[in-house]
């Protein structure tokens, strides 16, 4: 009896476990506070976006300043790797919250729950990127995805939104099943859920040739590829990105994708380093396929939003190339590229929201016709984002791609890099078409553009500054990513 009591002594719980999750707890409190404010102070609704921005920024600072020493059994860890991805994910939340007010005025739909759900999703992303245990990785993934399913279907303007939400939910659950199957196989093979211990066990017991381990690897890759929308697991992406509210599309193509890549990198580099000969070429092939499908289908789109959706698929391919390299420098290049992508994609979507004037679905590419004479500043911003998405030198897109390709070549994937360079040259066609329409064709009789709100201007300012800074002085970002990859 006494032994049993000792086993279950409350002292067996160490409060040290709580310390690494303090930023998550603060963010959770902010999310709950947003619900309460929305419920009990409906007149103060215009405060919600600013509260979100302030709260998330505070958490971002706390998280940056907090490095807890790694405990052996801890499930979450605040290392430099998680701090990097956390910054990326929380920045995407801040930018989305800033864009939301302008967007909701345009489409005339004010729902305060948007902000709390966004913050809950951010908690999920923080848990994902900080997880070193399969259980918390999976739970964080679900916590990240669930609010986004709801947000996708929040406006019921037409059936497309509901369809997008239903499709996203079904495909997300399907992907989770693959992921869980792979994780359970890994747990059965090694008897532990800790990522580092699994990797060590595989190395100790020479499991690398084991067929069931290869199967677990394949299932995990399939599940993760679904989550980050890599070909051939991308079928849901264009419809969902097009059907979802534009602010959410901007957020989805950056934040959750980055969190997915964080898990991808952590699992591949920590669990399966011995199997790199197996997964490296597969991921490189998938990366090339992704760029191919994304860029070629983007060519023929007439809707600006759908074009950006396919371009989001293509850019996942570029980032995947960095993971396929299987080295710390490759992962660091992928991380920096995702960070640059945050600026250029958020910026492009912000311009899209301003241009489309609340027309939810059919934002034709013609809406930017003659924009240079109607609003030169916005056109200039769009020019910068399109240059960066193409990868033209003075912008961040160029430096990001440069480091990615360099690390992939160093890992021996020369053919994949040649394909990637050719495809990004091809992508210039549809990115620069937007610029051509803005600058080279005359304005049509179109209603005047609503002046962007303060939040929108802040987003544009941050995005332009980010794209130019990472293009002109890329050292700081790449150093940070390199340091994050050091053990």
């Amino acid at each position: 009896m006494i032994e049993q009591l000792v086993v279950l002594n409350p002292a067996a719980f160490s409060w040290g476990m709580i310390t690494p999750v303090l930023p998550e707890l603060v963010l959770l409190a902010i999310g709950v506070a947003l619900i309460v404010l929305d419920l009990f102070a409906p007149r103060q609704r215009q405060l919600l976006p600013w509260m979100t921005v302030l709260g998330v920024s505070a958490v971002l600072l706390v998280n940056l300043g907090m490095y807890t020493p790694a405990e052996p059994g801890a499930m979450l860890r605040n290392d430099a790797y998680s701090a990097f991805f956390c910054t990326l994910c929380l920045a995407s939340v801040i930018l989305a919250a800033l864009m939301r007010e302008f967007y909701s005025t345009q489409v005339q739909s004010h729902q305060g729950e948007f902000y709390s759900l966004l913050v809950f999703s951010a908690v999920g992303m923080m848990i994902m990127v900080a997880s070193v245990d399969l259980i918390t990785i999976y739970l964080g993934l679900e916590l990240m995805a669930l609010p986004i399913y709801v947000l996708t279907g929040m406006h019921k303007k037409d059936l497309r939104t509901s369809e997008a939400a239903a499709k996203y939910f079904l495909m997300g659950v399907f992907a989770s099943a693959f992921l869980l199957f792979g994780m359970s196989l890994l747990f059965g093979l090694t008897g532990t859920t800790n990522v580092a211990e699994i990797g060590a066990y595989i190395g100790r017991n020479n499991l690398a040739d084991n067929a069931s381990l290869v199967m677990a690897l394949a299932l995990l890759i399939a599940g993760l590829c679904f989550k980050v929308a890599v070909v051939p697991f991308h079928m849901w992406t264009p419809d969902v990105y097009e059907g979802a509210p534009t602010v959410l599309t901007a957020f989805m193509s950056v934040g959750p994708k980055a969190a997915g890549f964080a898990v991808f990198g952590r699992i591949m580099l920590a669990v399966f380093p011995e199997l790199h000969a197996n997964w490296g070429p597969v991921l490189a092939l998938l990366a090339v396929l992704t760029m191919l499908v994304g860029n070629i289908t983007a060519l023929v789109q007439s809707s600006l939003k759908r074009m950006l959706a396919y371009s989001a698929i293509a850019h996942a391919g570029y980032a995947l190339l960095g993971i396929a390299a299987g080295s710390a420098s490759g992962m660091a290049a992928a991380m920096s590229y995702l960070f640059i992508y945050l600026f250029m994609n958020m910026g492009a979507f912000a311009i899209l929201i301003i241009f489309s004037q609340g027309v939810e679905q059919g934002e034709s590419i013609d809406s930017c016709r003659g924009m240079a004479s109607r609003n030169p500043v916005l056109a200039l911003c769009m020019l910068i984002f399109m240059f960066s998405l193409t990868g033209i030198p003075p912008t961040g897109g160029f430096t990001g791609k440069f480091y990615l390709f360099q690390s992939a070549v160093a890992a021996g994937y020369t053919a994949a890099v040649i394909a990637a360079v050719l495809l990004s040259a091809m992508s210039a066609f549809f990115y620069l078409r937007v610029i051509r329409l803005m600058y080279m064709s005359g304005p049509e009789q179109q209603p005047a553009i609503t002046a962007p709100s303060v939040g929108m201007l802040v987003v544009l300012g941050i995005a332009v500054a980010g794209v130019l800074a990472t293009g002109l002085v890329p050292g700081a970002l790449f150093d940070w990513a390199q340091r994050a990859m050091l053990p």
Partner: protein
Amino acid sequence: MFIPIYFWYSAFVIVLCGILAISLRNPVHSVLAVLVLFFHMAGLYLLLQAEFLAAVQIIVYAGAILVLYLFVLFLVNLKEELKLSAFVPGVWLGRGIAAGLFVLLIWMLPSFTSGIKGNWPSAAVSQAGHTKALGGELFTTYLIPFEIAGLILLVALVGSLVLAARIEGEQSGRSGKRDQNEHPALPPHQEEVQP
């Protein structure tokens, strides 16, 4: 002798009910197939000497969650079903992929080796008592995952309220009370959409 027969019977029924649940046209029948599946799942837990899990499986899954599903099915008007276009071009392509995956999984099965055993072999669990062992682990080692799961439920609650409020807001569009507060500039044709 009895145990392998019992296992194969349960496994067969689980697979059969799983296939039935996704292929039956009537959603109520699907839910009933899942109910049978859950009972046999509880049987498998008994085989592993996990009595507590078996009981929870029946009480929570079969008793609470499935009954909730049934309520939802009865309350929701299924004539307004949302139809999605197929994700894969042909039915047989999907079936082929599933069969291929099945063959691959069977093929890898012989090479499976069990990993290190944890701190709780079944003898230790039955000595400490199922509830005690489970509760102790859940609230110490696995406290953080447990809390995250709770948070997921909170999000599910908020999310379902948001989606339900959206539908309610549309339907009360005719009375116009809510919409006058929330959407001052609701276009007039919205009111004609609702029958």
